[in-house]
């Protein structure tokens, strides 16, 4: 018996593309919403984003992006020229049968299509409309353009990552696209809940960059309350809580601790590192015991946090001499068993292939994709006891569900679907059709 899903019966009209927006609707789909992704091949640029993730031996085209498959599972895809008169009419009909509309265009795009919030409301008075732009729809810089790393730079997030005296290391991916996507999903869910309770819809105007600022709270309060400048000696302190030889200040990762760093492990490959952190003198003593109580570690000065903070550089070198002969997983097990906080630095290969906990949690289960074959998709990090989130369909082929959506949901006669392919409503007239489109029109 399959359990019900939380968003069963909720239809979401999804104009999002590339990463942030599609990452939002992927989760709504996993939670049971019927997500209809609206695309148009002439200006599509999300199906091959995230670097080349098309498997070797496959031609790169709309339906072979691996990252697209993972980012867009659990959705239906329709292709529609929303600027044509027929397309305009159909999209308005789709709005009227949807509970939520979500998009991540620049701030004025949907309005220019005649689908601003007021117009959406005229079609569906209790609509929940979530816009996910870089700067939001209001404010003097609403028209600024961003993508993940730029939003991260502007929000202050990039600055907080790195070694002192070096350029910012920042984040090695679009953290604010992933996180912006979470806020998009959170917005739709909050809006739908509020509507279920009050009967009222609303426009939720999300700014990806500003959502990033809210993640720097303690650093901002340290300035607005204490007047401390963000640019200062020894900050940011790399993986440590404190850079040796600089004033002892809290640096916004949590409690002060030493040791607190990454250490090389055997056999010394690119991702052969583990992290160890001691948050109390007791945890430090347990680490010392585990290392065999070597003479260097048992000196009085190291018994207290202040001494360990002062001598971090030496301590870190000595710990690394100990870790560098050990495998990162074996070392993690030894440390954790002894009550010492440690974890391996895990690459994507490590997570998918070697992480016993992620395997136990079923984080990577395979689903069949018509072009890519059986491929692992990333699963939800939450287990809801009555309404589980499930990846139930792979990323859609472009326009795969035109017949299902326009005929079954909107009641369009089949001959109108056929004529819409001839007049460029559902697919550009001069662009070759995929075989499944021809099949659909029989």
């Amino acid at each position, binding site marked *: 018996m399959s359990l*019900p899903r939380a968003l069963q019966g909720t239809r979401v009209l999804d104009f999002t593309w590339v990463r942030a927006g599609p990452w939002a609707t992927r989760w709504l789909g996993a939670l049971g919403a019927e997500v209809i992704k609206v695309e148009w091949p002439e200006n599509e640029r999300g199906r091959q984003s995230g670097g080349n993730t098309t498997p070797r031996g496959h031609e790169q085209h709309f339906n072979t992006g691996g990252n697209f498959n993972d980012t867009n599972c659990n959705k239906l895809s329709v292709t529609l020229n929303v600027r044509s008169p027929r397309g305009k009419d159909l999209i308005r009909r789709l709005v009227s049968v949807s509970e939520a509309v979500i998009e991540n265009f620049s701030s004025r795009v949907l309005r220019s299509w005649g689908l601003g919030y007021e117009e959406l409301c005229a079609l569906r008075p209790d609509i929940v409309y979530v816009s996910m732009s870089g700067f939001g729809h209001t404010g003097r810089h609403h028209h600024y353009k961003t993508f993940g790393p730029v939003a991260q730079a*502007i929000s202050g997030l990039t600055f907080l990552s790195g070694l002192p005296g070096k350029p910012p290391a920042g984040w090695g991916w679009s953290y604010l696209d992933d996180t912006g996507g979470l806020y998009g999903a959170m917005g739709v869910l909050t809006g739908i809940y509020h509507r*279920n309770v009050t009967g009222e819809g609303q426009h939720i105007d999300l700014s990806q960059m500003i959502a990033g600022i809210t993640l720097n709270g*303690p650093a901002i309060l340290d300035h*607005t309350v204490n007047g401390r400048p963000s640019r200062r000696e020894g900050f940011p302190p790399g993986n440590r809580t404190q850079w040796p030889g600089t004033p002892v200040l809290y640096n916004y990762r949590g409690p002060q601790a030493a040791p607190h760093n990454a250490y090389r492990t055997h056999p010394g490959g690119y991702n052969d590192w583990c992290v160890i952190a001691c948050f109390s003198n007791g945890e430090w003593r347990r680490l010392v015991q585990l290392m065999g109580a070597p003479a260097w570690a048992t000196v009085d000065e190291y018994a207290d946090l202040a001494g360990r903070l002062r001598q971090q550089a030496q301590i870190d070198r000595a710990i690394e001499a100990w870790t560098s002969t050990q495998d990162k997983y074996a070392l993690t097990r030894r440390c954790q068993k002894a009550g010492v906080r440690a974890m391996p630095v895990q690459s994507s290969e490590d997570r998918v292939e070697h992480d016993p906990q992620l395997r136990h949690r079923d984080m990577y289960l395979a689903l069949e994709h018509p072009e890519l074959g059986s491929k692992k998709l990333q699963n939800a990090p939450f287990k809801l006891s009555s309404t589980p989130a499930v990846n139930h369909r792979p990323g859609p082929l472009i326009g795969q569900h035109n017949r299902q959506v326009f005929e079954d949901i909107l009641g369009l006669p089949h001959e109108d679907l056929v004529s819409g392919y001839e007049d460029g409503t559902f697919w550009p007239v001069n662009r070759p059709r995929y075989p499944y489109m021809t099949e659909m029109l029989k």
Partner: protein
Amino acid sequence: MSGPLSNLRVLELADEKGQFCGKLMADLGADVIKVEPTGGEATRSVGPFLDDTPDPNRSLSFWHYNTSKRGVTLDLESDEGRGLFRRLASTADIVLETFAPGYLASLDLGHETLGAANRKLIMCSLTPFGQSGPWRDYQSSDLLHMAAGGQMASSGYDDSDVPDAPPIAPGGGNAWHTGAHYAYMAIMAALVHRTTAGEGQHIDVSIHDACALSTESAVASWIYRNEVVIRQTGRHHAANPTPRTQYPTKDGKYVNALTGGGRLDPAYVRTLAEWFDPHGLAGDLKDERYRDPEVIADNAQHIVEEVLANFIANRNADDVYHEAQERGFPWGAVRAPDELLSDGHLEDREFWTEVEHPELGRTYTYPGSGAIFNGSPWRIYRRAPLIGEHNEEIFGEELGLSPEKLARLSDGGVI
């Protein structure tokens, strides 16, 4: 107008792992009651502190993550404390807890017990590794999650910037943020379900799972191409090295200027030339030969690494940022948190929030909300609670305990 969650009561039993999820619900209007141990939650000892003076009521970290909540203290290991918690739970919509797996059940306060007494209750357990599995009882921290989740494998330096650099864990406590975002999402899904089904449920959220999900296409690069990404300064990890995007400025800062990915065409170069020329920094970009895309492709290294980098090196970061954006280039200054206070766009969106601290006779500026909810506001209602600030209000006025009883519980260390 009231917030979208204004009809909900939340009991928060949470340390650094869950306090941000509680803040999101509280700032969105829910009545979040933070239930702390009698000495106060451990997160009160995390700095920075007001005037750098450590004190449980002066932690700025605690201030930020606990806005809009009310606070009570309660010893859950005493019989009377458990009894009071059960009474509170019978009035609650949501219990958010971050204890070690099994701890609340060992006190007979697990979902089985509380949910049986209150069928509508949604209980969310937000823990480092989830409620079961080989790592269930492992200890964690923000740094540990960033290592295991893959954040560190993707973040760090080009060899030319820092030879032999370690992987770098981005700062700010973002493992907790990531876990909290997914926990919030799961709670909202359970709430939506409850509006139709009428019943609550239990939610098991793993911060490790959440972090492992948050490195964009790194996992897809492995699954579809068996490629493991490398770390690069201030830009995307990649299977193979890509050109830098972060350039130093005259005022000792950096600008993130992406010019790759096929952007560099004749119109782009012409715009750069017209922008740089009045500053005498256009180099040879006005040359007619740059009307030819092939010439541009052949000279991309010169255009970007010599002319463009030199322009940025001779200008201040903020000027480059705004001038680029006005020309349609998605560039940004790498801003420090204290430089955000003067941003007019944030002022236009009424982002900064003045929060009153009546016991100090002061008002401080807090970061507000990431989105504008046009029908039900997301905003900070009040400062974080002092230790046990609402014991009397909640146990006395709302649960009806007499002043004598409250005094007795206080003397007995229950509250």
